[in-house]
């Protein structure tokens, strides 16, 4: 019986002549007379409703309404004179249409651009092949600094200042076994072998700095070709080639 009471209690405020479905009314008709708890609940709800109906908001009188109308009239006239009345907004739904269509289009465009420039098929930037160690230790950093001879470090800016002074041959790409070593080392996450450190980005920068534009383009084309062949592997922060 209690489960019925719990179900029917929410219909009680509408009983017997409120907004009830036919089956609900029939159910209440059969249940309420035999259930003392529901009868009491119904009686109390009726008392509350009667109390609300018996105490309506008192009419403040004609003087109040006269003042109300005068004040409101002034406000309405002021609003009309100041042109505060908003224009019809039925067209605004159509005006909003470009925004509704445009926002996803802009989002799709941004996504496309992001994928094009940062995804796996992104073009290699001019600094070209930035070779980064996964997490170089300070010892390795020092070794790198030591390996960079002062002559090379000094030569790079000079060559950059006069790129046409000396036409250098395009540096030959590292041999196949070394590329494999690099890839293997990267996959294992361990330190790179000695030979790989020699072809770090700093050396390549120096090499590139001494090239003419044509040479650079040729070099980069080769790089692209290698990449297409699958011999150059690019990761999020790592690129190696064989």
């Amino acid at each position: 019986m209690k489960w019925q009471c719990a179900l029917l209690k929410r219909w009680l405020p509408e009983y017997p002549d409120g907004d009830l479905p036919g089956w609900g009314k029939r159910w209440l008709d059969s249940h309420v007379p035999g259930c003392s708890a529901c009868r009491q609940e119904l009686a109390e709800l009726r008392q509350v409703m009667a109390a609300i109906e018996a105490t309506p908001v008192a009419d403040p009188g004609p003087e109040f309404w006269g003042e109300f109308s005068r004040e409101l009239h002034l406000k309405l006239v002021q609003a009309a004179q100041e042109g505060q009345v908003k224009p019809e907004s039925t067209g605004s739904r159509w005006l909003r249409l470009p925004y509704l269509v445009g926002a996803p289009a802009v989002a799709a465009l941004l996504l496309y651009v992001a994928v094009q420039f940062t995804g796996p098929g992104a073009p290699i930037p001019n600094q070209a092949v930035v070779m980064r160690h996964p997490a170089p230790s300070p010892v390795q950093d020092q070794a790198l600094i030591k390996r960079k001879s002062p002559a090379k470090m000094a030569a790079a800016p000079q060559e950059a200042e006069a790129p046409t002074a000396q036409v250098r041959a395009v540096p030959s790409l590292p041999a196949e076994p070394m590329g494999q070593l690099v890839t293997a080392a990267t996959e294992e996450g361990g330190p790179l072998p000695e030979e790989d450190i020699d072809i770090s980005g700093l050396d390549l920068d120096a090499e590139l700095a001494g090239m003419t534009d044509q040479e650079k383009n040729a070099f980069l084309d080769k790089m692209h070709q290698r990449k297409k062949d699958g011999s150059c592997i690019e990761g999020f922060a790592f690129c190696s080639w064989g």
Partner: protein
Amino acid sequence: MTDAQLVFRAQAGELPAFEELVQKYQREVYGLACRMVSDAEEAKDLAQQAFLQAFVHIRSFRQDAQFRTWLFRIAINQCYNFLKSRKKFGDPLDSDELSLAGDDPSPEADLVAQEQRRRLYEALERLPAKQRAVITLKVEQGLSYEEISRVLGGTAGAARVNYCQALKTLKKHIQTEDDHEVAMRSSQKVAARIPRR
């Protein structure tokens, strides 16, 4: 003249047509605001503000809805905003203010009714604003659940649940106050029996 015709004329910029609508609904809107904020002066301001907002946005009103429910929705929103700001700034409530607006010439004869009104308003004050709105719209304005859902948002079923919950809470508050009064009276009687030294 029907609401639709008056609204049509008001949308064309005829102020008298809108003022006719004001005359028609001012008591209902004022009553709603009174029940919501329990303050006659504030209710007057809120009712005026609701009509002003309705006038300003009358051209965005589409005739597929009832003007009355649209107006109630504006009024309820005004009341919500007011209640929010009052809650924020801590303006104290005074349920006695409301009875001042409707004072009868013979207050002695009306004492019981005033007491009943005071208790009801105190119980209403303790209800959440939405439940107060549902009670007022249902019992006083006679709106159906469908219309209430249009005024307050949500579904008709949600309005029904809110209404039931509101009645139950109101009943509980009124009963608690009755019990409190009975306890007070009995304690006064007991105190009167105790001989003074």
